[in-house]
């Protein structure tokens, strides 16, 4: 006897129905539901999943969370920065010149700068943990799903995308809960377009240098750009390489409950620690490598250091975007970790401190190039740690390399568009 005759075309559903029947039968004898009490969850959901208010409330809550993450962490970033600056200065006293430079400029200077970004990333993860533990995040995913479905994305992609604003590494690891290989792959592929915390120092530097009072708006536009590109690419991939319907989104809305401080801290830590691991390994290695390539041949001018040589070799490729060898060299280093771009620019211009670097940038480039650079940093090849994560999560070199190429191409194209529009508008 053939299975198809008995079970039809959707055997899974037939069997699932039988199981649900059995569940009902068993519960009929063992469960009595009292009069339906109107719970707080019901009250809250009336507004959180309201037809018209649902999305504005969503926007308000996430805006509040981002404000908290970036503004409340600011003084703590200064504290960490100050700590490492002092260490860097102190190590100037080390007798061996090379060692002093390695420890002072390379490690404390380079790595220390990167570690100043721990507060915003951790604060962001804390905020997400609170929204998650309270039960609201499930509603947010539910609301987003309606929209995401139309964009060919799965509702479950929402949380990984959200985490991407902190760091792409835990974000990509969070895709494991997405059913459907294609949905998961698309989410993995476009995740790096979401502007992670590491890119912020680059934006702050460039926007601060070129855009004055509009700097904040310029930075916001990068976040917005990242989201738009991620969505468009996801749509494109859905329609071309990874065709198909997203898997059905079934998600349970848990009861609301007050999140505990301790519980949220634990969740924050679980995700934040991924960033720290990256810092401890890739960023440290990157900082040392950058130091090496820029400081040697010892005593040489920056143009003649290894860094300079690499930059000059690749510069012609980027001429249409207005990038010179200095920018290209720093972009190469930013592959190790995007935060490093700032440090790299400082070394290349042989200046120290953000104000000085900003000054050097304004003297050498126009605002169009500045904005193009911001967008390029946002979109191009993700940092090595992220690439490693992509390989691990996707399990395939093919897709990892595809992502490298995709991000580079998208960055270049968008860069050209911005350069074109900017020049046409007369800002060059």
């Amino acid at each position, binding site marked *: 006897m053939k299975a198809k005759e008995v079970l039809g075309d959707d055997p899974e559903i037939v069997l699932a129905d039988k199981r649900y029947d059995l569940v009902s039968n068993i519960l009929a004898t063992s469960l009595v539901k009292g009069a339906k009490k109107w719970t707080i969850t019901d009250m809250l959901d*009336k*507004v959180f999943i309201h037809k018209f208010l649902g999305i504005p409330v969503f926007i308000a809550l996430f*805006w*509040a969370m981002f404000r*908290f993450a970036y503004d409340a*962490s*600011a*003084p703590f970033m200064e504290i960490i920065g100050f700590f490492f600056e002092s260490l860097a200065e102190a190590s100037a006293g080390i007798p061996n010149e090379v060692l002093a430079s390695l420890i002072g400029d390379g490690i404390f200077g380079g790595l220390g700068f990167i570690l100043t970004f721990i507060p915003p990333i951790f604060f962001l993860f804390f905020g997400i943990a609170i929204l998650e533990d309270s039960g609201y995040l499930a509603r947010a995913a539910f609301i987003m799903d309606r929209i995401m479905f139309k964009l060919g994305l799965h509702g479950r992609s929402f949380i990984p995308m959200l985490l991407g604003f902190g760091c792409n590494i835990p974000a990509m690891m969070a895709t494991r809960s997405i059913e459907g290989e294609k949905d998961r792959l698309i989410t993995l592929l476009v995740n790096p377009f979401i502007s992670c915390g590491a890119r912020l120092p680059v934006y702050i530097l460039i926007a601060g240098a070129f855009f004055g*009072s509009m700097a904040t708006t310029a930075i916001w536009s990068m976040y917005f750009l990242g989201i738009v590109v991620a969505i468009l690419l996801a749509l494109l991939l859905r329609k071309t390489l990874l065709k198909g319907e997203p898997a059905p989104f079934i998600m349970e809305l848990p009861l609301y409950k007050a999140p505990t401080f301790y519980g949220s801290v634990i969740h924050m830590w679980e995700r934040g620690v991924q960033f720290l691991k990256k810092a401890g390994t890739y960023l440290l290695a990157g900082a040392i490598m950058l130091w090496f390539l820029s400081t040697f041949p010892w005593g040489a001018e920056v143009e003649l250091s290894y860094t300079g040589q690499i930059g000059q070799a690749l510069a012609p490729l980027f001429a249409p975007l207005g990038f010179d060898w200095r920018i290209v060299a720093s972009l190469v280093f930013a592959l190790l970790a995007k935060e490093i771009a700032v440090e790299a620019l400082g070394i290349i211009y042989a200046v120290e401190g953000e104000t000085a670097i900003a000054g050097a940038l304004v003297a050498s480039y126009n605002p169009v190039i500045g904005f193009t650079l911001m967008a390029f940093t946002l979109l191009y090849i993700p940092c090595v740690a992220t690439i490693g994560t992509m390989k691990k999560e996707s399990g395939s070199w093919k897709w990892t390399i595809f992502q490298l190429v995709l991000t580079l191409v998208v960055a270049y194209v968008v860069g050209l568009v911005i350069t074109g529009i900017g020049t046409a508008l007369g800002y060059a």
Partner: protein
Amino acid sequence: MGFNKNVGTEIAVYSFVIGILYAIFGILEILVGWGDLIGTGVSLIPPLELVGVNVVPPDVFGGIMLIIIGAVYLTGVKQQAKGEREGLSFLLVGSLLAAIFFGVYLVIMLANGVGYVFQFEDWLEWIWLDDLRPGIWLFLMALPGTYLAFTKKKWRE
């Protein structure tokens, strides 16, 4: 399932007032902050100062958020006036949102305080009054009323 219509009307009026206040200050924040957003430095109305306190900070997005909170409060008014229990959901969520924004602004104020104490560059001219914004004092103003609305009148069935 409802509650006493007189009670409902009281709550409805209260929600209406709070909602309108949030909406008004939201609009004000947008108007004051408009200049910064489009880079001209010229706001549609000048910043308001009261006793030296920057009463309405320039903040277009912050203003939008206040309007959203106001909208939540206002949506509940009709059902509250009719004595329908569901109307209370809006008061609950409105108050929750107001509390969350209060909390966030307060934490930011405290963080800025930390920056000031350490005498970091960006905070040398900061005073706490700079951060005393509508998101903070509107919530405090609304607090007694909200507390009464939820405890005095029996709404749990």
